[in-house]
């Protein structure tokens, strides 16, 4: 891992198009400003990992019988159905 020291308002560049600026430092909290092209998604890592994990859980197959029973169960709860 590359380690760089930066002060408030200083910036690092990643490639030609991504810039990360240190906006403020208060205690153990660092506020970053990130400017990146709109084709690049920027995520908090723990949120990304949570979604990744949830997708993997959601993708686990259920049996056809269970799925049919689930749809019936959940649809019957709706008004007018």
């Amino acid at each position, binding site marked *: 891992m590359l380690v760089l020291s930066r002060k408030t308002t200083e910036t690092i560049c990643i490639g030609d198009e991504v810039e990360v600026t240190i906006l403020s430092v208060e205690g153990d909290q660092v506020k970053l400003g990130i400017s990146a092209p*709109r*084709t*690049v*998604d920027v*995520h908090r890592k723990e*949120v*990304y990992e*949570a*979604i*990744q*994990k*949830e*997708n*993997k*859980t*959601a*993708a686990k*197959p*259920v049996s*056809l019988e*269970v*799925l049919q*029973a*689930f*749809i019936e*169960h*959940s*649809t019957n*709860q*709706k*008004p007018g*159905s």
Partner: protein
Amino acid sequence: MMQVETSYLGTVKSSEDDILLFAGGLPGFLEEKEFVLLPFEQSHFFLLQSVHSKHLAFICADPFVFWDDYEVKLDDASVEQLAVQEEEEVAIFVILTIEQPFSATTANLRAPIIINSKNKRAKQVMLDAYKFSPKTALSKAASKERC
């Protein structure tokens, strides 16, 4: 027409025009970029089926049927990536994790599937809104509406 193999609905005929393109894949499945959305008849549920992997499919729901207060604020990057021009073009679904008992089933409201129905570009978007959890109980929403 093309044929899509599914685990849940057998072999389904689909038009190539209906293929949703997830240019960046989905978190956890980055290599899966082409899906079709197939409705389960007479329900608010859909199958988001990979075109190339029979065994990869997500059960999805229309969130607005279950949660009155659900809202999605699309970030500028997603608007641009999906080339959204009109709000009416956008369709929104949420992925379910089906559990037994069914009351334990959850919906991922934090990361909805956004589809531009006009150009078929799609993306799973991570919302900034912490009030929406990736594990929101479906049973509470359903029972709330029933009252």
